[in-house]
């Protein structure tokens, strides 16, 4: 893929978001005014897109099918949530300056030690990136060193996120149990209720997504990326050539987890809540489906897939509240059956018919991961 196209994708994302953000700040009567509802939606979609991008990097390029990426997303989200909780300060309903409301009414006397430091954004930011990264490192180191691959890996990533879900559901953990963290007031001093803050968060999400898109693009285009694809397609060949496969896998897995964590961190202030439901295995599976719908192994596809599926969800849950699951479930089946390369693959096929040119995208023809 040419550098030209790489940057144009980033420019479209960032430019589009910037335009929407600016238009949303117009007075409500203005013809071009974009309602706050759309800003919030787009912001959410872009965070999902970043999550999808992180899934695609490990699944599309290294063949690691993680059914637990939602865990990294949620951990990043919780780190942000803890920062936002501390920002509430004494404005909670009980007026307690240190303890979040849910601790006050469950009779907690003092802030647990692991909540320390979250009143500083810098520290929180570090945790948003490092906590998912650390978890991914420990998990990846153990799993990839002992060569857990294919479905085994998928299932234990699922076990990981499931165990975390159960853990975060426990009220004794000190993360608010089922209700999670909510009732946020402001972010870096800006009120989360104001339209300008929301527009700003949208632009920040777009910027982060574009940045990671470009980084991923460069990564997979370079020799490093070639090694990743080599590992995906013929892991043992790569080993016998002297590549320490597990190190590559751990490195990419950690990078991808950090990406997912930051996506979660930006997601939380925009939706206003983080709860253990984000750890639900179904959420992680859904993220994989976004990638499949968009086109696995094409970074653009992950972004398109995430936005398309979630847009569909938004429309269907409003327009066909009783039938939308049929539509969504049916879509997943049809895409896997008829569009093995996703929407991007379809697009490429259409383009190839019009202009006979070599395929732009290195989408895999075969998927040998499970048997490897």
């Amino acid at each position: 893929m040419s550098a030209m196209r790489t940057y144009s994708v980033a420019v479209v994302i960032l430019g589009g978001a910037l335009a929407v953000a600016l238009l949303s700040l117009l007075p409500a009567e203005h013809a071009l005014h974009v309602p706050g509802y759309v800003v919030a939606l787009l912001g959410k979609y872009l965070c999902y897109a970043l999550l999808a991008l992180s899934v695609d990097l490990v699944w599309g390029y290294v063949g690691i099918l993680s059914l637990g990426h939602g865990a990294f997303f949620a951990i990043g989200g919780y780190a942000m949530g803890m920062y936002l909780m501390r920002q509430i300060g004494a404005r909670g309903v009980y007026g307690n300056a240190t303890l979040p409301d849910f601790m006050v009414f469950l009779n907690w006397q003092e802030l647990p030690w692991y909540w320390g430091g979250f009143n500083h954004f810098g520290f929180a930011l570090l945790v948003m990136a490092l906590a998912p990264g650390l978890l991914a490192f420990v998990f990846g180191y153990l799993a990839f060193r002992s060569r857990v691959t294919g479905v085994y890996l998928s299932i234990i990533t699922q076990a990981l996120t499931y165990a975390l879900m159960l853990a975060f559901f426990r009220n004794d953990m000190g993360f608010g149990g089922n209700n999670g963290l909510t009732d946020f007031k402001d972010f870096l001093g800006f009120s989360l209720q104001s339209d300008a803050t929301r527009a700003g968060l949208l632009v920040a999400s777009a910027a982060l997504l574009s940045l990671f898109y470009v980084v991923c693009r460069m990564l997979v285009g370079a020799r490093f990326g070639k090694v990743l694809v080599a590992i995906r397609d013929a892991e043992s060949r790569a080993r016998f050539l002297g590549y320490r496969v597990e190190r590559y896998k751990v490195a990419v897995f950690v990078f991808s987890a950090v990406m997912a964590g930051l996506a979660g961190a930006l997601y939380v202030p925009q939706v206003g809540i983080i709860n253990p439901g984000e750890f639900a295995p179904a959420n992680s599976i859904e993220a994989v489906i976004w990638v499949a719908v968009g086109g696995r192994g094409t970074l653009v596809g992950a972004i398109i897939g995430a936005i398309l599926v979630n847009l569909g969800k938004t429309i269907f849950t409003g327009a066909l509240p009783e039938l939308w699951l049929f539509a969504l479930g049916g879509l997943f089946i049809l895409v896997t059956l008829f569009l093995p390369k996703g929407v991007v693959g379809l697009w490429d096929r259409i383009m190839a018919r019009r202009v006979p040119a070599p395929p732009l995208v290195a989408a895999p023809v075969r998927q040998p991961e499970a048997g490897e």
Partner: protein
Amino acid sequence: MTEVTDALLYLDGVTVSFDGFKALNTLSFVVAPGEMRAVIGPNGAGKTTMMDVITGKTRPDQGTALFRGSADLTKLDEAEIATLGIGRKFQKPTVFEMHSVTDNLLLALKGDRAPRRVLFARETLSERARIDEILETVRLSAVRRRLAGELSHGQKQWLEIGMLLAQEPELLLVDEPVAGMTDAETADTADLLRRINQTRTVVVVEHDMTFVRALDVKVTVLHEGSVLAEGSLDHVSADPRVVEVYLGR
């Protein structure tokens, strides 16, 4: 306990069992530096398992496996052994199908494999020259831009050998290099291996007797996980036990 040996590859008393079945049974196998050795034997004789032990894929239950007399192959993993200088070609040609022929070779070129080095690696002129040279050797210059997955079976075999060469190993393990090749290709391959042998040590596992004869080297016959006979092809062909288990049938 291990004696100092001047053999390049030294296996002694190696035993591997799967669920009670002994794939290798106190196997001893020695290859001298610069030698080319052919290994034959019926299906299930343990040829591939022996390769697995040498390359670190399978850990033996017992026995010694030394490289250059000092490196204990039973303690190292595949990547470390590859870096030591042992290259392996699989029975089924295994190349990176989604990469171009040149990229396949590029990834195989000798160099630092650590992720953080590879992350910032740029292709150098000398690398490009080396790739051109190997492409010539394995006669794939004409298809250098094609995806490896699009190559013919024989071309894939050659590409894999090319990747082995790019690794610049001291010892090459070649598993059935001519399976599925035409007669002409088979002859060419024998020729290629002989040329490679001028600078490197080679162990070839093969079923094709014409090919083995064409190589004209010392032959080891494996049976039920141990060495049945060793010597020139004519010598082992004359051995009645070999005839019974293998050649006669």
